[in-house]
């Protein structure tokens, strides 16, 4: 009995020591230089090697974070603490601070009722695909095609298409990543400050007459907002009104009322 216990103890410890020494020796002998940041990230990871991140273990994931800019949020077992630690190592401080939070907004209020179409489009339901053919089926070539490329690309599902066929952005959900701005072929998706009060719901640089022909809610470049309300921060460039959000406005709401096509709309 005693002998057995001794044997067991000895076996495990001898094996353990043997392997320990062997490995220590081997690691000295076979040492290979690694990127220190990779090692640091690897240390920060839980070493569960569970593969939940989709990479082949923690080392592979660490390597991918450092060398291939992999997403640092993939480690499920590590959770938030690991993310913070990795962010520190990688110098990925959360951006923010004094910059104004911007959100995306569709600068167009056209839908099937208000805007004229030149032809009936038949093809892939994707704005960029539709834009290949005559820049979309709408007569206005600046407006929203409403096929929802921005919806697909939005990482937080902030963009939806309403019953009325217009594309809406939920500014509470929007994280300001600008992916929708990049993907939009007509450039109708633009960023405005989170606390903007009004925005111009039009993107057309066409002359007034052309806009009127194409759509009933477009900015016709009449300059009423610019001339009548000089303090409100409106400027009309290229037949399109723009709002200067940096100034303290006065009478911006009055201008919105005065707009003949009511394309100055409340940014809710």
């Amino acid at each position, binding site marked *: 009995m005693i002998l057995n216990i001794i044997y067991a103890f000895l076996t*495990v410890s001898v094996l353990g020591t043997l392997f320990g020494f*062997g490995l220590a020796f081997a690691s000295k002998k076979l040492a290979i230089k690694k990127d220190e940041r990779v090692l640091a990230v690897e240390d920060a990871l839980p070493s569960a090697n569970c*593969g939940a991140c989709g990479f082949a*273990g923690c080392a592979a994931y660490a390597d991918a974070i450092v060398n291939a800019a992999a997403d640092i949020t993939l480690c499920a077992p590590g959770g938030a603490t690991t993310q913070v630690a990795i962010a520190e190592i990688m110098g990925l401080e959360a951006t923010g601070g004094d910059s104004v939070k911007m959100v995306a907004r569709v600068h167009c209020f056209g839908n099937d009722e208000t805007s004229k179409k030149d032809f009936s489009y038949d093809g892939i339901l994707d704005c960029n695909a539709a834009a290949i053919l005559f820049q979309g089926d709408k007569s206005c070539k600046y407006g929203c095609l409403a096929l929802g490329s921005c919806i697909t690309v939005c990482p937080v599902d902030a963009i939806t298409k309403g019953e009325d066929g217009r594309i809406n952005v939920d500014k509470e959900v929007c994280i300001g990543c600008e992916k929708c701005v990049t993907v939009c072929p007509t450039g109708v998706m633009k960023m405005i400050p989170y606390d903007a009060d009004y925005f111009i719901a039009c993107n057309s640089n066409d002359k007034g007459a052309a806009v009127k022909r194409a759509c009933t809610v477009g900015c016709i470049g009449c300059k009423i907002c610019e001339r009548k309300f000089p303090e409100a921060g409106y400027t009309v460039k290229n037949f399109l009104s723009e709002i200067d959000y940096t100034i303290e406005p006065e009478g911006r709401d009055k201008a919105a009322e005065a707009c003949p096509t009511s394309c100055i709309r409340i940014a809710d």
Partner: protein
Amino acid sequence: MSYIAIVITFVFINNFILTQFLGLCPFIGVSKNTESAIGMGFAVTFVMAIASVVTWLVYYYVLIPLGLTYLQTITFILVIASLVQLVEMIVQKISPPLYKALGIFLPLITTNCAVLGIALINVTNSYGLLESFVAGISAGLGFLLAIVLMANIRERLDLEDVPKPLQGVPVAFISGGLMALAFMAFDKALLTNLLG
């Protein structure tokens, strides 16, 4: 059992993933793309083959003479953990290209139930040294086959509009289930009839 029988058993009939559920974590985790799946599969095969041999030696030359078979779990896992680390280092030193191909998968294997599983199964089936080795390789190949097939299926499914809640892991499990369903065609009787 003949060696061919062992191969067929471990690759098809008792496929580690599809019937034994050993090594499911990497099977689900690393089957997102084919390249990683192939690398993982080969790494597992490699380690399983070596681990089978080493654990066999430890079991029959250390544990049995000392009457310590109840220590098999603890010694096996010790052996495997060290072995994996050693193999990783050696491969890294000797053949950097091989390390690039296999090495990154090696740490993941330490906690892979399949490796410890094959060691224990070898003991349970009282295989000889060579038989253990063949069983190790075959089980690894079975794993390789399953994970590569799975990766290809998942790559195909990535291009389809899978319903949102089912995307990713669930659909992988369901695919695995259907694979297992088809693999039920391989049974013991088939082996017996085939090899007489």
